[in-house]
């Protein structure tokens, strides 16, 4: 099937400093893809660049196609239709993504007017339906409340309702549960999966927690220092991780079920974008390092073609 989003050789540099070194990825309709990696590895920047949300000083190159249509050098009017419409994004901190001085119902109605051309009454009815869909009780009354009157988990539900208002083909959820308690995290992850089943939209879940991604997603992309180092179906990734960084991440994840053992920590720290080593960026922390790692960055190549497992 034709992918809904196709990103080819996406590169981003801030003030001449490259932070994304050529990312290729494609998202199929209705699929759930996880993006994992540590802070600063390029997970979020990939989507901010794709949607033209980076500041002026960022230089972007490559190609981002949404259903065949190029977004990277598209005019603002075209991007306005895409953002919040065909591709919606939700973030870690819902309270700062919502406008504190407007009623939440009005904020959702605004999206419905902009992207679906709904009039006042139709927008209100639709907003109420969306509130019901994301599980906010007493929707009719709560539409007139302000963001501070809701809890963190409810605000994230409102953000999800707002993201759904434009009937997106793709929902990008960037660390959607990181600021929430574990019981509320379970509620939100359940809600995202349920909505994905109901609407058939694709879900991209960005998280630093392999556990969350492993539970929600079918396919996982592992990022390190601005590159994808491994890509595989989720079961395959946990059973046969290929890249030493992926193995390190899995080994560093404490578990509730495995017999208790010492965590296999990855030594050292992630190199900063300003002093990235030549060759493979992971070499300095890698157990399997050989001499030529300092010269070449290994390209992503297929480990197993039939299940789409690729590793650098």
């Amino acid at each position, binding site marked *: 099937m034709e992918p809904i989003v196709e990103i080819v050789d996406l590169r981003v540099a801030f003030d001449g400093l490259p932070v994304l070194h050529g990312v290729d990825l494609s998202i199929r309709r209705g699929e759930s893809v996880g993006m994992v990696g540590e802070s600063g590895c390029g997970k979020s920047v990939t989507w901010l660049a794709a949607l033209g949300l980076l500041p002026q000083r960022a230089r972007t190159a490559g190609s981002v196609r949404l259903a065949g249509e190029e977004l990277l050098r598209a005019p603002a009017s075209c991007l306005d239709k895409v953002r919040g419409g065909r591709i919606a994004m939700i973030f870690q901190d819902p309270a700062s993504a919502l406008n504190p001085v407007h009623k939440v119902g009005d904020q959702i109605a605004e999206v419905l007017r902009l992207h679906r051309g709904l009039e006042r009454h139709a927008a209100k009815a639709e907003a109420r339906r969306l509130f019901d869909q994301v599980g906010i009780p007493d929707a009719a009354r709560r539409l007139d409340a302000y963001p501070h009157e809701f809890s963190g988990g409810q605000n994230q539900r409102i953000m999800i309702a707002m993201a759904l208002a434009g009937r997106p083909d793709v929902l990008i959820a960037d660390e959607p549960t990181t600021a929430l308690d574990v019981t509320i995290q*379970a509620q939100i992850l359940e809600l995202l999966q349920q909505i994905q089943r109901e609407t058939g939209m694709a879900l991209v879940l960005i998280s630093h927690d392999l556990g969350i991604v492993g539970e929600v997603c079918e396919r996982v992309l592992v990022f390190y220092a601005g590159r994808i180092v491994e890509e595989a179906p989720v079961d395959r990734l946990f059973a046969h991780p290929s890249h030493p960084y992926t193995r390190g991440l899995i080994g560093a994840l404490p578990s509730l079920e495995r017999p208790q053992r010492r965590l296999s920590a990855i030594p050292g720290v992630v190199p900063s974008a300003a002093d990235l080593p030549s060759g493979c960026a992971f070499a300095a922390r890698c157990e399997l390092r050989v001499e030529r790692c300092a010269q070449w960055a290994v390209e992503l190549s297929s480990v197993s073609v039939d299940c789409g497992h690729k590793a650098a």
Partner: protein
Amino acid sequence: MMAAPLLQADGLVRHYRLRHGTFGHSAMVRAVDGLSLLLERGETLGLVGESGCGKSTTGRLLIGLERPDAGTINFAGETMPPEGHARWRRLRTRIQMVFQDPLGALNRRLTVGTQIAEPLDIHRLGCKSERAERVNVLLADVGLRPDHAARYPHELSGGQRQRAVLARALATDPDLIVCDEPVSALNVSIQAQVINLLADLKDRRRMAMIFISHDLRVVRQISDRIAVMYLGRIVEEGLSDLVLRDPLHPYSRALVSAVPVPGHRRERTILRGDPPNPAARPSGCAFHPRCPAALPLCAQIVPELRLSRNGTAGRLPHR
């Protein structure tokens, strides 16, 4: 007779007054509401629960940074003296605390070495050359290099800063460290390094630890026993593996089942509603509005902490 436990807290209560607006009526927040616990030498107790359950207040009470409104704390057989008292200051060489944000805990204008030596200076331990020697040993203990002593906090990575904070906490060779979310702000690969370091330190020094965290996976990795808190009370307590494998209290069960497990789509108990507001504590068992097993009686009577077959104690629902 057995030696006294290292730390014993009985019936701790800490209430805060919360005022709504300038003229609004004030409400009572019962942050800690009748909490008892016991810690043996060299033992690690994990304290888990949602935000607002009173974990951090408990930690602050246990090291004497706050006075309980009721209840007693005994450390090594002696009652906890009031904060600022000479005896309390002496006691502080034996109890230390580590917080979530290492940058906030360090002074940005002092070198790491100076700050690690600070507890030694304050408590007048050793002469000048001994202190410098001790700083080097402490740096090595937490996996930092001697040249890190001359650096400033902003020159270190997040993981290195947390190591520096740990080195400072270890300077006086304490018997107890209270760690409040010590790895929550760190990246996964760095988090594993610091957890391993804490595990090594407690083994090597036979130091007791209270480990406060919202992450059950991390708590299990380091704790001998776990206490689950809900709205200022312990609802279940027992050996880590027993509590996590076979939780008795419906709240512990929901917490355990909420932990994401990769590639494992299982049936889970998803709690309805939000973490409760400590200023509006439900009557009876505080958990009853969210409890999947609640009975009418639960709204009236607080269940007692009961011992179960394997030594795990829990406030069980009425049967």
